[in-house]
């Protein structure tokens, strides 16, 4: 449940315009673009090395402004999911 979420320093971002556009957006806010997420068009995997790797709250900083960038259609900071082997 949200109360126990662990935030990582990875983001999923939907940005149109291809990889170049994504690279530009990433570097603008200090992220590294790890490339498209599988077969999901326009979805990219961003990583921010200056944000703590794990945290129980979404850290705030200059990187947070990417959420407000007009070119960003959708963005999601990645949360660690608990997955059990069956």
């Amino acid at each position: 449940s949200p109360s126990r979420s662990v935030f990582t320093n990875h983001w999923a971002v939907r940005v149109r315009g291809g990889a170049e556009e994504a690279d530009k957006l990433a570097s603008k806010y200090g992220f590294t673009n790890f490339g498209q997420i599988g077969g999901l068009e326009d979805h990219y995997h961003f990583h921010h090395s200056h944000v703590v790797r794990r945290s129980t709250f979404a850290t705030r900083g200059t990187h947070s402004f990417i959420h407000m960038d007009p070119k960003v259609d959708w963005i999601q900071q990645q949360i660690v999911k608990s997955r059990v082997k069956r």
Partner: protein
Amino acid sequence: FAQSDPNFIYFNDPKWSNMWYIHCSVKNSRCRSEMNILAAWQRGYTGRNVVITILDDGIEKNHPDLAQNYDQLASYDVNGNDHDPMPRYDSSNENKHGTRCAGEVAAVANNSHCIVGIAYNARIGGIRMLDGDVTDVVEAKSLGIRPDYIDIYSASWGPDDDGKTVDGPGPLAKQAFEVGIKKGRKGLGSIFVWASGNGGRQGDHCSCDGYTNSIYTISVSSSTENGNKPWYLEVCSSTMATTYSSGEFYDRKIITTDLRQRCTDGHTGTSVSAPMVAGIIALALEANPLITWRDVQHLLVKTSRPVHLKASDWKTNAAGHKVSHLYGFGLVDAEAMVVEAKKWRSVPPQHTCTKMSDRRTRYIRPDQKLNVTMSSTGCSGQPDQHVAFLEHVVVRVLIVHPRRGDLEISLVSPSGTRSQLLAKRLFDNSNEGFRNWEFMTVHCWGERAEGTWTLEISDSPSQLRSNLEVLGKLKEWTLILYGTSEHPYQSHGSHHSRARMLEIPSVQSPEPSPSTTQQHEDEEEEEYTGPCHHECGDQGCDGPDADHCLNCIHFSLGSLKTGRRCVSHCPSGYFEDTEARRCRRCHRGCEKCVGRSSKECRSCRRGLYFHTEESSCIENCPNGYFNDEVQRHCLKCHENCVKCVQDADRCTACKKDFSLAGMTCVPECTNGTFFNLEEMKCSPCHVSCSTCTGPGMEECLHCSRDFLQEEWRCVPKCSPGHYPSDSIGFPQRMCRKCEENCIRCQGPGTRCTNCRDGYSLLSGTCIFHATCNNTDEVFCDMVKSNRLCEKKLFRQFCCRTCLMTG
């Protein structure tokens, strides 16, 4: 009874005879192998040209039983972001799961290693994605790896089943499913197989696992060998089919490849079942590579059947499918799958008909079931959405509730089929309710969509409920019907399912024509008129029993002297001479054989063991083999063992260049190294050791040159209080302790050269400083005359004075 089948397949894989879920090697045992995998193989399907991957914690690609089928292109390491999916090793072997799953699917056959995979000619890969932070991105990436190359994705994991979690694929993973379904396998749709939602804990309901509740995943459940519910299994309306798996400690287990190139029968849970179904689907894909992801689900619905699976809620839905919340449509049937797949015509396109309730809030009163209905035409007015015949049914709910665990939800279809979408969950104290959570059922598969659908919600407050005043509310609910606008099977000509004919009495094999029956009867009128035993052949009989037959349908057993009777199968100790249709005795000591000679033995009588190499029964297995008590076979020891007991890995003697570590044969390491069990290689000892059991100083067995052994370690020179000496029979030089109170000496006894404080040196020994001023009083004379000072015990008593005074 596969054994008696002349086409019986025999592999030399050591655990082949233990794979009860694939074949029955002993006829009258309780062995059940109704998954009919052997029969599918005998039809020639072994998974050729089909690619499967396991989403898990990695795959040991150099495992001797996987390497040959390993496919690098079906593998990736999402955790490490590289192409090597090898698992991370640690002392607890926690990352064994993926390798175990992979073996079930595609372990190589007949290579003298471990087991045989269900699709033992398929290609197998692994996607390492559980051994690190699992996020939406990680899952989406994993589900989207090479969709045009990989056919089947198998996953045996899911959200926590702590009984209070409601979780599933995030937005990216959902999109990855959809992209895979739309574009994967060049448009035929990737096939996602998921272990049904359990995790080994009680009090959960797997409808709160969003992966198994997705229409894109084939959710697989498990049954024990005896058809009982394994203790870990949860009910679920989205479960599609079942395979055998582990159960209680007395149930037989599933055997598979294990980490560190080993073999195990410790793989359990529905983790076992997902790869099994993945393997069976691979056989079907080999039979018909053009079947779509929905065809596969239809095939499973058509061919799976209840057999001996015990469930209190088996019911037949309006389309004639037997279904239960525990086992879905029942145990998978690999042979029926490949037979059906071979002649399968793709089902018509999928339509989706969505209807949302009005937004009027309904209160959910404790102990008063809330019934809300929705009439649906199946979108008959919109041709491209029209659903006449159902596949999946999804109910999306928006419920506000103070304690979610108190809720139970059911859905009743227009044909009256009830699906339990949610059961009460004791541990779920959450007040979040359900926010657009999607419950799914397959129980209405094949039924008509049109009619009135009823959603029932009941609220049974538990003691943990804080405030009964606060009522739950159903804000809105949406009914989503998936299916086809025309009958899925009749529009393309008939392809009747073998399974259906078996099951549905109304479709009978044609009755014999009356005239034939009459004629038959006439013939027998002068002779014995009663019915013949069913094993009697066409020459009839002269009595009702099997030994009255004039000839036999199958086999005759016995001799004229002892009396001969007809049997369907020859008992143990005999083999079936199909030409002569006679049971002939095996060689002495043989229980199963395919011929008379000792070389044609296949299994032995109690107390004897079948030695494959010689195909004969012997009392004790030779070196390099152990007596397998279960199947009474001589099974090979591990390749490094010269002798082993009870199991291939329980070695008692090793081959050259190997030595025993416990009961394992490990390579003998050169001097200065030891065999590191964790890394499975020789690692250096401490610099002071020439042989050791570990890297530390204290784990030396023998010291290096120029080192001496002092107590439990090796030292370059002896520490104070010790003197160097040789030890007889040992190459090792030792540091031995000097006499008590002596801090430097040249040897034992009176060879001390330095005493510790408080003692003084006297003729090579250390005397306590205590002095006394009256020698008489302390009997110096006596002490001296009796040479007591040489006794360690007395030395402390004024010897110094006595001796000093001369």
